[in-house]
């Protein structure tokens, strides 16, 4: 199959690329939501994310990508304890996916042919330790959203149906994209995303020209284009891996915590999830830049994406919540 358009070849959209890199460095940030107009490269960026992610170690053939043999579920019937390296799973959750496909269901083939009651793992199992990508997330059926909310919260998928009683870990990072004109996202789901972005069409004329040029080159000279940009992608991946190594050594100072808290209070964001995400994101950003500590510049750079979707809606504010965050950051750090 044709590889998706390479990540590093995406023109502009720096905030979106920054967010993708950050979530790759520290998955505990909790995923990315990209909202924006049509034709701005949302889907392209998410589909390209897979190439940036460092590979994981997992037991061969394990449906939930378990790291050790002991973690493999009984129902999977794994007999080997061979560890293999495989790419971080990025699982596409299509809008039309049925509940069966998402959570897993009775394996009909085994049930009918051998009379066995076996479990067939769903998308949530396959996304364990990886990413779950939902394009047009705002159009997802409500009952699937409910399911996802529950699993994303508990990190465990519980299946009680058709005489099966199965539970397995399902820890994944949610990545979603959508067009706000087509519908809003339920606030409960919104809150599950660590970072949120608003993208718009580039307004710079040269940037727009470059987009078309690269897209055309991708269509026309696929091999040449990919061999050039794949190397660029590899560079970013190396940076991500080295940032992951550094992240544990970046201390959290009292001053940083105070800054985070002050920002969140000034913005009136609900709950404490905002502070936590802001802190983790700033730390990942510092690590990416090879800095030894988190500075206010790091906080400033990531505050809009970490906090934008946690504000109370103000219907009279036309500037958008990103600008509001920026304003408050400027005031707080003045």
């Amino acid at each position, binding site marked *: 199959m044709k590889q998706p358009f390479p990540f590093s070849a995406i023109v502009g959209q720096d905030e979106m690329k920054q967010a993708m890199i950050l979530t790759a460095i520290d998955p505990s940030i909790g995923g990315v939501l990209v909202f924006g107009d049509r034709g701005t490269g949302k889907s392209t960026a998410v589909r390209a994310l897979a190439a940036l992610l460092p590979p994981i170690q997992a037991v061969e053939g394990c449906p939930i990508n378990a790291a050790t043999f002991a973690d493999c579920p009984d129902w999977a019937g794994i007999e080997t304890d061979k560890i293999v390296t495989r790419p971080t799973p990025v699982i596409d959750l299509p809008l039309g996916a049925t509940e069966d496909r998402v959570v897993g269901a009775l394996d009909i083939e085994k049930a009918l042919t051998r009379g066995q009651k076996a479990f067939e793992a769903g998308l949530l199992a396959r996304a364990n330790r990886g990413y779950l990508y939902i394009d047009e997330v705002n159009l997802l*059926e409500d009952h699937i959203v409910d399911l996802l909310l529950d699993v994303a919260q508990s990190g465990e998928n519980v299946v009680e149906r058709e005489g099966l009683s199965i539970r397995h870990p399902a820890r994944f990072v949610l990545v979603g994209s959508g067009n706000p004109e087509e519908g809003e996202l339920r606030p409960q789901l919104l809150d599950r995303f660590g970072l949120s972005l608003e993208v718009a069409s580039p307004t710079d004329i040269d940037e727009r020209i470059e987009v078309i040029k690269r897209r055309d080159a991708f269509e026309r000279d696929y091999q040449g284009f990919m061999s050039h940009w794949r190397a660029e992608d590899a560079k970013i991946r190396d940076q991500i891996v080295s940032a992951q190594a550094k992240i544990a050594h970046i201390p959290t100072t009292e001053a940083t915590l105070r800054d985070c808290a002050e920002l969140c209070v000034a913005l009136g964001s609900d709950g404490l999830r905002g502070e936590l995400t802001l802190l983790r994101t700033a730390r990942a950003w510092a690590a990416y830049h090879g800095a030894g500590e988190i500075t206010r510049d790091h906080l400033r750079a990531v505050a809009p994406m970490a906090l934008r979707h946690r504000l109370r809606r103000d219907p009279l504010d036309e500037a958008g919540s990103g600008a509001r965050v920026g304003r408050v950051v400027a005031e707080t750090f003045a």
Partner: protein
Amino acid sequence: MAAPHPIWSRAELALTLLAINPEGLGGLWLRARSGPVRDRFLSSLDALPAPVRKLHPRITDDQLFGGVDIAATLSSGRVVQEQGLLSGSKTLILTMAERCEAGLSARLAQTLDCRKHCLIALDEGADPDETLPPALSDRMAFHIDLNDVALGQTGPIAFNLAKQIDNADIATPDEVFSHLTKTALSFGISSLRAVQHTLEAAKAHAALFQRKTLDIADLQAACELVLVPRAVQFPDADDAPAETPPNDRQSDDCPRGDSEQMDLPEEILLEAVQALLPPDLLAQIARQKAPRSSGNGSGDVSKGNRRGRPLPPQAGRLDGTTKIDLVSTLRAAAPWQPMRRMVSPRGQALHIRPADIRVKRFEEQSDRLLIFTVDASGSAAMSRLNEAKGAVELLLAEAYARRDHVALVAFRGTGADVLLQPTRSLVQTKRQLAQLPGGGGTPLAAGLQSAMGLAKTSKSRGMTPTIALLTDGRANIALDGSAARVPAGTDAEKMADTIAAQNIASVVIDVSKRPHRALESLAGHMRAPYMPLPRADARSLSTALSAALAD
């Protein structure tokens, strides 16, 4: 025979280009009523790559993507996967595309993004707002409207695809990229997919005429086909930088003098597109921006529906979204029992075949909610609060007849109160209304805010809210509670804009002694019909309101 209509010639060209590069161009959005003209156009779709499959807007995911064929699986004892329409087919034809809902459009958009299909959307929409979801139309290169073409102005579509050059061999001069991008921007087209499509179309055009390099004719044809139908503004040399401030480099980069060293003058493209723009472009845009209330004819999506009227059961399949109607399934199977028992090797008591399965159907219609937002300020009380109450009572009676829900919001003093959460109890509503005291300032914006909040929550519960605003329109309390006329007015206007942006239907009833110009403009902001009470007697009020509600 007269020369074909220019639109027909363009449609013909679009179809030819689509046949050359179906995946790259995404597809064609055909807006035409069914009739001989459309039939003539459709008869030439054979040129598109086979197999061609037809989709309808109510298609289920099983049909689209495939899945386990339960009936075949049960009978054969092994899993039989059913092929979806998407696998294997190259060309998809979406009939009644104007009824396509956001969910299906998103699925099809994802499919088109894989660049393995090409979609022909047949849109029979009668009104401008009855149309294909933009997420889908944006991914299709050609938008053709055949509604103005008469049969006599059409001609046979002849394809000459025998000799064409491979797409990859066509060279694209560097300045083409910038020309196309700028041309698209000057017509206010912000989606980059449009530019991409123009480029692909130009290449297909070059391939058709066996040119190895794109030339001006290719670009001109492509711009006419792709950009014209998407244009949202007239290019204006003086205004363009002002309207799109970040693009001021546009004028710096290409001053007139530079164009000599480019062999493809940009103006030609601009003129080509401009010549084809309809003169009433701006009016059309204004119309398109009007809310797509229930314009697609399918009404609001009904969730948590409590008013589903059962319809006769229908033969169908159990695909997870449908419920079996056991009684009628048995009834359908009953006549065949003796015969099936005879041929069946196993002596089972009841023989039910997949064809017998009947599924339940409900008529889906979401409950309506009327949110009365009543001005109880001093000024309104002075004038005609009682009459307003009378009007509300009249409407209540009508709401009762239709089993609508009602809610009551009153604003006076410094804020607004939701006096009654959505209910069907009219007695309660009347009582609350009768007790409603008057007096104090007019916090119009606060009233609208409460009403909108109520409308939004009820919408998420599956109701279709309508805000009926009864006021004398003299807003003098701003949202923050301060008594100042000017901010109060702007706050109210902003609130009205927000309501319009949320696509909440509304109606404004002026209860002041004399019709009020400011209130009429507020109604404009809300995109609501405006009715001055002095001119409206009870009967005409209720007719007008029913009309506003009916759409």
